[in-house]
């Protein structure tokens, strides 16, 4: 499978190189859907220019990247395009290898379950075959590399691509079973933007499952491993933060980066829900709603972990999706990351209820974003409500997509334990509802 993957990488690099050299590159790097105040390339260049002038990049409100980015781009700013293409490549290869590992795990578990006769007789058609699963890793890599959102994000040189690479590497290390590397990478991802903190739970659950430690709060083995993993994670986080302090000699970056992410002072329009909400917010409710919206991102972790404790990889997908939808400054690069996982759940297709509607909504909104932006900002014939409406619709479509896949996943699990063709008490065909 190395050859098709290499071919895919070559095609992806070619497309990005062609776009980098065309006049579209500058147009794309200005688009608010692709870049946000957190990850715009223009702001990285501005921060480096401020550093050259002798002014701390965090003294103004234009630069919100972590000192790690300053350190990295101080050396490679002339080769920025290559860096972003390599990051995309790393993400694709990491996702490829992790989905390959995951598929192997899934197939092995299925085999054991079949041998121990745990599946009802009529749900054999739900079982997955190696033939069907053979091309899934390649499809995942393709879904990431050839997704127009990813290409736009790479051509705009949005640092979202680098964050995605770190998260993809984290997923790979988790699935390969290396707790140390996984903890370090998760700390790096959290350091970059705080929201990957919620991925701690699925990673922990995966390791517990892998090491056959039951998830029981009364068992000491559970706490032993949890504390080990938490120690690795928190320790790496502290070390990385400390190193950042020594880079510039001050703690200025903490309010500039993390304070900025949490308090949302900049109301530049983007594809998320925060900007217009806080542009129209009554002043005395502002703090309350900031807290509500930020808690909204984090608080699905515990319930989802409880429900999906046997399926940590699907939980990772759900968490990444929730972060992308509800974070304070989302961009299409974040959307592209969780969309890359969709081929891994292609066996759920028969249980999806709204997939046609959702894909139409997402396609239409992606096309309408630039149109209504132009009408508002350049033509002056529309106002901000038009763009806001499309934002609402886009997020609504994403929520429907994610909850649809969740529904399908749970339903398949239910069928695998209770049988595919269910009958009512009087023997007629039954319908399955959530009660």
């Amino acid at each position: 499978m190395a050859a098709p993957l290499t071919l895919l990488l070559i095609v992806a690099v070619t497309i990005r190189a062609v776009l980098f050299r065309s006049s579209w590159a500058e147009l794309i790097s200005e688009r608010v859907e692709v870049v946000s105040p957190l990850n715009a390339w223009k702001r990285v260049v501005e921060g480096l220019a401020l550093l050259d002038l002798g002014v701390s990049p965090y003294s103004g409100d234009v630069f919100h990247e972590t000192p790690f980015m300053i350190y990295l781009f101080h050396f490679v700013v002339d080769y920025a395009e290559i860096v972003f293409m390599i990051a995309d490549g790393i993400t694709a290869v990491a996702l490829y290898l992790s989905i390959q590992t995951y598929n192997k795990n899934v197939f092995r578990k299925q085999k054991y379950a079949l041998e121990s006769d745990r599946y009802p007789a009529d749900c054999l058609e739900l079982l997955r075959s190696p033939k069907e699963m053979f091309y899934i890793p390649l499809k995942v890599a393709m879904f990431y590399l050839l997704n127009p959102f990813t290409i736009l994000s790479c051509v705009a040189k949005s640092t979202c691509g680098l964050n995605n690479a770190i998260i993809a590497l984290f997923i790979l290390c988790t699935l390969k079973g290396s707790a140390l590397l996984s903890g370090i990478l998760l700390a790096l991802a959290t350091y970059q933007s705080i929201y990957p903190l919620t991925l701690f739970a699925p990673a922990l659950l995966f390791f517990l499952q892998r090491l056959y430690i039951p998830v029981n709060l009364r068992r000491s083995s559970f706490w032993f491993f949890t504390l080990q993993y938490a120690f690795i994670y928190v320790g790496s986080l502290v070390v990385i933060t400390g190193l950042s302090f020594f880079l510039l000699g001050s703690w200025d970056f903490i309010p500039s980066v993390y304070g900025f992410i949490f308090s949302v002072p900049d109301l530049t329009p983007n594809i998320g829900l925060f900007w217009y909400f806080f542009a129209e917010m009554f002043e005395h409710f502002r703090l309350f709603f900031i807290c509500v919206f930020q808690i909204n991102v984090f608080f699905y972790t515990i319930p989802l972990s409880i429900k999906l404790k046997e399926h940590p990889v699907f939980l990772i997908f759900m968490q990444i999706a929730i972060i992308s939808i509800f974070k304070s400054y989302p961009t299409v690069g974040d959307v592209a990351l969780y969309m890359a996982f969709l081929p891994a759940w292609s066996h759920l297709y028969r249980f999806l209820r709204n997939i046609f509607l959702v894909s139409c909504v997402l396609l239409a909104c992606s096309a309408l974003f630039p149109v209504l932006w132009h009408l508002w900002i350049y033509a002056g014939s529309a106002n901000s409500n038009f763009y806001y409406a499309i934002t609402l619709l886009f997020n609504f479509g994403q929520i429907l997509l994610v909850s649809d896949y969740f529904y399908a996943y749970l339903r398949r699990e239910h069928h695998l334990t209770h049988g595919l063709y269910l009958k009512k008490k009087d023997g007629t065909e039954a319908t399955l509802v959530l009660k």
Partner: protein
Amino acid sequence: LDSRLPLVIFLHALTPAAARDEFQEELVIRPLHSGDIYASFQFRTLWDTDFLQEGQKVSHYRLFPKSLGQVLSKFSVRELHISFSQGFWRTMQWGQPFIPSPPGAELWVWFHDTVSDVDGNWKELTNVLSGIFCASLNFIDLTNTVQPSASFKPLGLGNATDHRFLRYATLPREIVCTENLTPWKKLLPCGSKAGLAVLMKSEKLFHSSFHSQAVHIRPICQDEQCSSKAWELRQTLNVVFDLHTSGQGKKEWSLFKMFSRTLTEACPLASSSKVYVDITDNPELFELSPATPLLGQAVVLGDRRTYSVYDLSRAETFGQLRSFNLLLRDMLRPLLHAERYVAGFGLQTGEIHTVIYNNHPYRAFPVLLMDSVPWYLQLYIHTLTVTSKSRDNKPSYIHYQPAKDRHRPHLLEMLIQLPPHSMTEVTVQFERALLKWTEYTPDPNHGFYVGSSVVSALVPSMVAMRTNFTQDQPLFSSFVPVKEESSYFVRVYTEPLLVNLPTPDFSMPYNVICLTCTVVAVGYGSFYNLLTRTFQVDEPSPPLSKRLANLIRRIRGVPLLT
């Protein structure tokens, strides 16, 4: 060929000797004291012929327009003066015009004394002229025609002064427009294709304070003894361009700015083609380029005036580019001045351009530029460029303090060395922020103001100054302390800027809160359902009678129905 030769000789003998005609064109430009500029075109055709000779019909026209020649013959006109003017000549502001004319249309004609029915000829003449000039001169009739006894004596030859042969009429209501200019231009030998007439574009000519076009036909003497007579046709066009309407408020005029065309060649049919510029009030008033060595003097309206002459029949007038564009520039030039404007389009990004002019002919001096830009226009200092004379000019000192949102504005201070006699442009890009709805002024679409930039400099002085403090100096010269003898401190403020920011819809706070919370609630609701409920087979609920029966049975303690 041999057989046709006698025919050619025969035809040549029949035609009379070709009449001699001559065409001259000239343009006089006179800058006026109010900042406006006066341009006067005159096209003169001189023809040795006699329209009024009995029995001989003039049929071979060359430079003289045939339509006018036929009019002269048919109606036995001795002198014809017709003018169309738009606007009123303001004598107090502009002085005297070369060719005066009243607003509207004016026509006065001296008929030959052989005419028996002057009124009939007058009526037909007005109708024919109305067709030639596309004007409604047919409204001239006996009700608005007079025969002045003393005012309009003949301007050309003519000893008969019986005012019964003079008719004078004006139509003050007549409007002049392109339809009148086009037939007037067609009467010229070169039309509007070559010579000075190419400058006559109606978009610019009619966008003026005063516009007047006229045709004057009269017989004149060829020499002092008046042994031979000739017919003179003068077509004149006077136009005054307004400083503010056409000049954009700047006392800087050029042929291109006035007429949106430049001259490329003289009319080939003209024996002389000249441009005169009135330089009597120079060198205080304006600076003329290209320079010309030719000077002329003339006594006009009782005043001796000096003119710079440009001869268009000489090829070197047009220079290398084969194009002649006269330039008159105001002499007032301060040594240091600055302008500022916003470039770009749309409500997302923009560029601030600050232009600093150093008008000293040979000295360069440094200036300190200070810019304070509010926080909601986010400056990108890596896009800062300083160019002088289209070359990069790096400032020797930059102090930049970036803005903090809602706390402090940007501060940019730079020390720039200005080369002599140059223009320096400082550009920096910015992005416009979306503010909270309470942070907008009550009229948000008016825009937000950005304060002036401050340019501070020590400008080299032409005059040595005293540095010691004396009591008897007037107040206006003692404001700024003088530290050096050879330079004085000056502070120049640029224009403030007015920048539009994108606005949210101010009527929507409640709606936005509801809609966004609805979308978040949809997410919450879907996840809540999937997390707290399990899949169950949908058993239909039993009908009401059965449920009631079961209820009673439960109370009685008896087994229930299925």
